[in-house]
């Protein structure tokens, strides 16, 4: 009942303020009249009695205000009044409002969009039920770099470990689907039977892969992704049906649920049992990734300790070539493992964007503080008329919160656009990019920033503006700023310059790294080389000799294409993402092997890629499948393995202990994984005709004209030999090189944007402070000019004042930048984090921009008309 009364009375007061007010006014007037009559009855004169009654009641307006402010509706009314007033104030100075809102929007928008990316990739748990328990199992060499495991490791550890509930190995699989109009290469994974059990998500239709499926010679079965199932017609009875992959019928046993997100290989369309062939020593090649589901309560460290112990006990003995005493085994969180490559870059970007937000806040604080100073008369007047300090602060806070909210909403729009732009330009290496979006958490983050910024940014000027002595304020219309306030504002400008400098230095270092990286030599001549990959499909290629003959025919056909200068084949292509390593050992010496990239190439490969021959000879017609196996090694491998000795004629094994290869030559090093690899990546080259098992080969064709133009002609040549083989990954070597720097370029672009925004904001900040300073000192400057100061000397006066701030900011910024630069060390390439050129040029450039920002108000000061200035 009473709550109802509260609500209705409050609402009626809200909707009909006039009536409610009249009620209060009447009651107070009535009280006054009673009091007066009382006094009059005791014998006072009419005038006296009225005075006494007024004294007693103590200010009719105050009492009325007191009664009115007791209801809850009063708070709403005040807020609305404050809002209306704030809107009017903001509309009255559109320039200020625009700059403030834009500054906030840029700050909030940039921060929110970057946070969305970082949040998704680094912090959001993987989309699996037991995401925190899923670990990646890796091998580590004595230098501490980790790499993929072997089937042998999995085979020995999985049944023995007590730290994992399930363990699985997998490798990429690219089957060709035939039996329809056009052969199509699908992307999938070959997985051991517990793969989906580790992830904790299984097929919703049909069944999971069983261990009985996963044995050599097991049935051809496949699990489809929801998207592939839909593309194949979305047949609800597809389980049990057959599809043709690589000319074999595969029975569909299951379909994954729609929301299933395979973070390990996001574009995988289907999964089939691994059915690993352990013969011929293959089990010891490092080409399988391993994951495991940690047993509940077991930490990564405990699991690492256990597999390390097991690994040493079993594997060192079983296969000492691969598992020397220096190798160790670790379990690391899958989430961390997936984002490992991008983590430092993302955190650096997040840091950069936080700095931008900081500058934005400093700028807005400055703007509001300056405005607060101009409004001191108004505030003092309001205080004198009886407004309490809390009431004034509340009003000022409403104004800054309103600004923050408008800025925040604009910022959200910028964030939405920003996230889309980020996804569009993100490099392929960015994991989980498709999941990035502005979700609830991010929205809350943005709103929190906005509110905190609004409160923080509004409070300082509000306190500052209400602290001053009202009477002094009203008495003389002072326009000067007190020492403390001046110091605070100068400090803000200095901070702004310093932050901008830190950002610019980091941006400069990254830019110079990128420049160096682009000019790095990949070890081959990239211009005018086109590459594409041929994937053989079908049982006729089960035989090595058929495969060899097929590829030889393809090479012949390509060589005959007009415009092709020289063509070659290779089993793995530099910078393409191919990653096929083998342990290389000096024959007879089981110790001290190296993990080396293995290339099976046609004899023309070195000429086509222009990889320089340093010693000996290259592969030629003598090296047939039935002649003694030969190999070429890269310079770095020669140096490491045969320090001081002549490598030519030495005998080595590549992977399994037979066959033994004789080294016939040494060639230059080539960048295989990335241009940014500081250390040379050792390689070993064998004749394609002497190596079995490569079902996919890359074509490299050096052309006489623009290589991209020849793509269709070369494809026709390939299909002229056999029309069923899919050709994929067509790219010029120059494109591959550009892609290799893509993630760096991404980081650099972001830093460029942020540094530019920071620079502009810092310039605005300096300009704002100096010009309001000049405005405040108009009278003083007028006196100087009237007393004979020359305009240039006034110009110098203002400039010097600005310069002091800039120099202080730059000095502090340089120190902070040097201290903070270790954050981006991992992203630098062949450049010191304390690169003097970068630091100097940034300091000079920033100072130049800052001086221009100073020059405008200084010039205005110098052109003051003393007669007008003195009257101001």
């Amino acid at each position, binding site marked *: *009942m*009473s709550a109802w*009364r*509260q609500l209705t*009375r*409050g609402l009626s007061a809200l909707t009909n303020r006039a009536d409610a007010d009249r*009620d*209060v006014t*009447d*009651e*107070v007037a*009535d*009280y006054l*009249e*009673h*009091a007066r*009559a*009382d006094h009059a009855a005791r014998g006072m004169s009419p005038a006296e009695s009225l005075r006494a009654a007024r004294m*007693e*009641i*103590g200010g009719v307006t*105050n*009492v009325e205000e*007191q*009664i009115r402010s*007791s*209801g809850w509706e009063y708070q709403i009314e005040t807020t609305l009044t404050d809002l209306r007033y704030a809107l009017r104030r903001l509309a009255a100075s559109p320039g200020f409002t625009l700059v403030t809102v834009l500054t906030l929007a840029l700050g909030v928008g940039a921060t929110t969009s970057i946070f969305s990316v970082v949040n998704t990739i680094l912090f959001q748990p993987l989309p699996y039920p037991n995401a925190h328990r899923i670990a990646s199992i890796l091998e580590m060499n004595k230098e501490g770099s980790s790499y993929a495991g072997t089937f042998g490791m999995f085979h020995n550890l999985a049944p023995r470990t007590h730290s994992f509930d399930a363990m699985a190995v997998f490798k990429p699989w690219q089957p060709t689907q035939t039996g329809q109009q056009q052969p199509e290469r699908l992307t999938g994974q070959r997985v051991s039977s517990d793969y989906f059990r580790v992830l904790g998500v299984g097929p919703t239709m049909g069944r999971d892969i069983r261990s009985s499926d996963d044995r050599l010679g097991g049935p051809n079965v496949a699990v489809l992704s929801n998207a592939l199932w839909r593309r194949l017609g979305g047949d609800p009875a597809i389980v049990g049906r057959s599809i043709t992959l690589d000319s074999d019928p595969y029975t569909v046993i299951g379909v994954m649920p729609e929301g299933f997100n395979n973070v390990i290989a996001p574009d995988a369309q289907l999964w089939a049992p691994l059915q690993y062939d352990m013969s011929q020593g293959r089990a010891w090649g490092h080409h399988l990734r391993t994951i495991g589901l940690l047993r509940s309560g077991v930490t990564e460290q405990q699991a690492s300790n256990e597999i390390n112990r097991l690994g040493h006990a079993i594997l060192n003995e079983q296969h000492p070539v691969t598992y020397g005493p220096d190798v160790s085994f670790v379990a690391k969180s899958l989430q961390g493992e997936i984002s490992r490559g991008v983590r430092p870059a993302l955190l650096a970007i997040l840091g950069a964007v936080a700095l931008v937000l900081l500058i934005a806040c400093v700028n807005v604080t400055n703007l509001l503080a300056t405005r607060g100073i101009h409004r001191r008369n108004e505030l003092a007047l309001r205080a004198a008329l009886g407004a309490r300090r809390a009431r004034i602060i509340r009003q000022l806070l409403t104004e800054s919160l309103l600004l923050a909210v408008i800025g925040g909403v604009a910022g959200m729009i910028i964030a939405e656009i920003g996230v889309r732009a980020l996804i569009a330009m993100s490099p392929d290496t960015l994991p989980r990019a498709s999941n990035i979006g502005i979700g609830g958490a991010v929205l809350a983050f943005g709103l929190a920033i906005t509110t905190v910024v609004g409160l923080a940014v509004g409070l300082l000027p509000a306190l500052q503006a209400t602290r001053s002595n009202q009477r002094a304020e009203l008495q003389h219309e002072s326009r000067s700023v007190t020492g403390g306030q001046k110091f605070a504002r100068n400090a803000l400008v200095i901070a702004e310059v310093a932050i901008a400098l830190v950002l610019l230095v980091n941006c400069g270092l990254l830019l110079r790294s990128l420049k160096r990286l682009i000019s790095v030599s990949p070890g081959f001549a990239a211009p005018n080389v086109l590459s594409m990959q041929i994937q053989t499909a079908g049982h006729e290629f089960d035989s090595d000799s058929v495969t060899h003959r097929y590829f030889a025919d393809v090479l012949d056909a390509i060589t005959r294409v007009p415009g092709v200068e020289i063509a070659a084949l290779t089993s793995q292509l530099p910078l393409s993402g191919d990653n096929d390593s083998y342990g290389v050992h000096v024959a007879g010496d089981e110790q001290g092997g190296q993990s080396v990239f293995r290339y099976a190439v046609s004899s023309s490969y070195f000429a086509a890629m222009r990889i320089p021959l340093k010693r000996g000879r290259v592969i030629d017609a003598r090296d047939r499948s039935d002649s003694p196996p030969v190999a070429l090694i890269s310079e770095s491998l020669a140096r490491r393995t045969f320090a001081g000795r002549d490598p030519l004629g030495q005998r080595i094994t590549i992977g399994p202990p037979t066959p033994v290869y004789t080294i016939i030559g040494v060639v230059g090093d080539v960048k295989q994984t990335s241009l940014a690899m500081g250390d040379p990546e050792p390689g070993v080259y064998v004749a394609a005709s002497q190596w079995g098992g490569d079902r996919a080969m890359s074509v490299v064709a050096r052309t006489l004209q623009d290589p991209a133009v020849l793509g269709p002609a070369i494809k026709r040549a390939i299909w002229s030999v056999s029309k069923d083989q899919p050709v994929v990954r067509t790219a010029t070597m120059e494109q591959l090189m550009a892609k290799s720097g893509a993630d760096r370029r991404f980081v650099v672009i972001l830093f460029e944007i942020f540094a530019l925004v920071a620079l502009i904001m810092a310039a605005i900040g300096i300009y704002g402070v100096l010009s309001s300073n000049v405005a405040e000192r108009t009278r003083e400057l007028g006196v100087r000019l009237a007393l004979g100061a020359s305009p240039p000397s006034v110009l110098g006066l203002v400039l010097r004042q600005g310069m002091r701030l800039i120099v202080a900011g730059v000095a502090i910024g340089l120190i902070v930048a040097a201290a903070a630069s270790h954050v981006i060390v991992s992203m630098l390439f062949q450049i010191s984090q304390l690169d003097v050129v970068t630091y100097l040029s940034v300091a000079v450039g920033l100072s130049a921009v800052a001086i221009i920002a100073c020059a405008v108000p200084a010039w205005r000061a110098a052109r003051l008309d003393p007669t007008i200035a003195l009257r101001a």
Partner: protein
Amino acid sequence: MQEPNTDVIQGTLDMLILKTLSLQPMHGYGIARRIEQISRDTFKVNPGSLLTALQRLERSGALDAEWKQTENSRRAKFYSLTRAGHKQLGAETEDWMRRASAVARLLKAEG
């Protein structure tokens, strides 16, 4: 300040209003006078506080308010106790008695 009167003890104004109104409906000024009279001018009622308290009690349902003619034919807002108001008065009186006697006991024990 010719008399040593003080403001109403913090938190007791509501109770005093309710008690005063339990005798008969009254307008604001009348309530103030009555409290001052009965307390023999020990308490001085602040008009602002009184009128605010009346609005609050009216809103909470302890009082009803009505504009009525006074004896000298002027309009005034008369307040009267509701059932909820009676209940609240009972509860507050009991509470106050308990506290007051406790304080009195403490003071006596000290002496």
